[in-house]
């Protein structure tokens, strides 16, 4: 039918996504058909796009609503006018009704009129359905694209999540990527408990308020969060007096809580977007990133706790040696600290630095098996006593033999009395045969012997310690390790000794 064709030919430009009845569609329909049609919602409110008095006005509306209640879609009024109504399903809570009327001249006119009105109705329904389908398809495409972005983001997030990387690095990445993906002015992460170092804030982009106000913004938004909600989407921040008082430029925000350790509050939030409002797909993406981050931060905390526990256990073990010998009290900890300085100076990896530190802590663990009459003897050791004394290297190696992860450390403990020229013990290894860790521990051990009080001699001045090290490079000490130690600020190292964790020492 011609009328239907005309109506279906409504230009696509008028069918925009997200509009229930596309702007202009109804006016267009009226114009093209020449039939007087009016539109109103089933709750009686007029449809914004139609002139309220386009056809029949309130009288028509009442008549049509009554007919609809009786499930009729057509009434002929007493005055000889044909009135028809066509409900159109909308996505809002009220349906839209198109009602039209024609003046009927005679029976033939009635027949024609009915067909014309029916055709108009069909056209309106088809156009609305087409617009709806198009909007839905566009929404689906958008959400598909968004899903791809999300998969890509989460995939790459998985690659940067390493428990030995700092939390700040992860959050920086997350904020940067989210800002790009969401096209937001700023994305910020706020945590109150990161690495026990107090609150942490990371921002990608520019916040429309001072960074110092971020905790207030987060606290206020979290405060308004119902317990069963997981996200705040506020596209009208200026209507909230608290937010408006913080910044006149804060318009839209999406916030997802980051529930980290012991319920310490934190949040991931996106702020402002030039392109429009934030919606649930944005919130969903932030939530995915937030939950990955939360799991990571929690894992990292557990990892750190396990690390700390291991260190504490090692220290407890080591202090049992220190407790036997008051003169070497704190020696292991000082050697470990010196080892760490040397390793850092040598640009070893963080993992290697950690190993060197542990090797320093454990290097004398074998002395737990050395009889106290020898360990504590003042004056020279007899040759057979010396033979027992030097066994602490092998005993230490055996103590650690069962701990597979500490294998490099076991080697360092076993060989920490080897000299570069082969004159050391227990194996008389030379040069590169001595593991690097052992060379570092050996140097740090000698350094501490020179810088602390011993029964047989007082502390040497630092200048003399330097000369001693320089004089023995190549015979006793490894040159790179010695250079590294000589480049360390020795007085700051001494200060670090003073600040070291307390050891168990006999009075």
């Amino acid at each position, binding site marked *: 039918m011609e009328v239907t064709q005309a109506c279906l030919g409504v230009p696509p430009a008028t069918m925009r996504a997200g509009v229930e009845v596309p702007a202009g569609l109804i006016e267009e329909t009226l114009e093209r058909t020449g039939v007087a049609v009016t539109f109103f919602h089933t709750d009686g409110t007029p449809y914004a796009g139609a002139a309220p008095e386009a056809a029949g006005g309130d009288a028509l509306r009442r008549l049509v609503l009554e007919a609809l209640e009786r499930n009729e879609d057509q009434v002929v009024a007493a005055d000889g006018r044909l009135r028809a109504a066509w409900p159109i399903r909308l996505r809002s809570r009220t349906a839209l009704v198109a009602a039209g009327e024609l003046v009927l001249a005679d029976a033939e006119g009635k027949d024609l009129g009915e067909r014309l009105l029916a055709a108009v109705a069909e056209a309106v329904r088809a156009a609305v359905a087409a617009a709806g389908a198009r909007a839905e398809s566009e929404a689906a495409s958008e959400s598909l*694209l968004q899903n*791809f*972005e999300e*998969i*890509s983001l989460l*995939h790459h997030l998985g690659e940067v999540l390493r428990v030995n990387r700092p939390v700040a690095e992860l959050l920086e990445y997350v904020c940067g990527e989210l800002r*790009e*993906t969401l096209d937001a002015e700023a994305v910020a992460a706020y945590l109150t408990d990161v690495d026990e170092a107090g609150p942490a804030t990371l921002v990608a982009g520019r916040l429309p308020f001072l960074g110092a106000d971020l905790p207030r913004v987060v606290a206020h938004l979290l405060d308004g969060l119902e317990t069963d909600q997981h996200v705040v989407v506020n596209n009208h921040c200026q209507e909230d007096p608290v937010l408006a008082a913080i910044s006149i430029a804060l318009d839209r925000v999406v916030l997802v809580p980051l529930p980290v350790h012991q319920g310490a509050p934190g949040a991931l939030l996106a702020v402002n977007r030039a392109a429009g409002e934030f919606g649930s797909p944005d919130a969903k993406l932030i939530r995915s990133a937030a939950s990955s981050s939360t799991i990571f931060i929690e894992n990292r905390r557990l990892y750190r706790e396990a690390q700390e526990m291991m260190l504490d256990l090692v220290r407890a073990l080591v202090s049992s040696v220190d407790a036997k010998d008051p003169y070497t009290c704190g020696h292991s900890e000082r050697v470990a600290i010196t080892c760490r300085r040397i390793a850092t100076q040598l640009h070893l990896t963080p993992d290697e630095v950690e190993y060197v530190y542990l090797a320093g802590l454990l290097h004398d663990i074998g002395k737990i098996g050395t009889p106290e009459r020898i360990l504590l003897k003042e004056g020279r050791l007899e040759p057979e006593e010396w033979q027992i004394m030097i066994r602490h290297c092998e005993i230490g190696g055996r103590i650690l033999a069962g701990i597979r992860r500490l294998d490099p450390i076991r080697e360092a403990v076993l060989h920490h009395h080897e000299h570069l020229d082969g004159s050391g013990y227990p194996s008389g290894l030379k040069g590169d045969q001595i593991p690097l860790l052992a060379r570092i521990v050996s140097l740090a051990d000698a350094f501490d012997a020179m810088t602390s009080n011993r029964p047989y001699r007082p502390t040497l001045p630092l200048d003399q310690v330097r000369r001693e090290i320089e004089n023995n490079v190549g015979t006793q000490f490894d040159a790179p390790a010695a250079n590294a130690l000589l480049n360390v600020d020795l007085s700051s190292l001494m200060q670090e000794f003073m600040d070291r964790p307390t050891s168990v020492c006999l009075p």
Partner: protein
Amino acid sequence: MKPKVLVADDEAPIANVVAMKLRNAGMDVTVALDGQEAYERALAAPPDFMITDLQMPGLNGLELCARLTAELPDRIPTILLTAKGFEIDKAALALLPICRVMAKPFSPRELLARVQEAMGMCVVP
């Protein structure tokens, strides 16, 4: 003139998502669902730019790119999409007009930015 882009991927959803992103950015996009189809479409109407998956049945992404480079007067700048961790012969790449290799899953936003960058178009941040 809308830039003409050919998208070749045997995984239709990926090809369609890429096409959608580029069309939204005002490009004239043709989709081919295997290497042979892409080859024929490119010969019939040479595109300004090509995005192709590496692993496709029949003609793979590298072969497609090599044949088009040999048979068409103009080299078509190309972005190659690969499964993650898939090793590509660097020497083979160097002979072809492949300006970038992107591992799946990739971000459509980033892909669009790379296409615009490669085509020397103004990228609005």
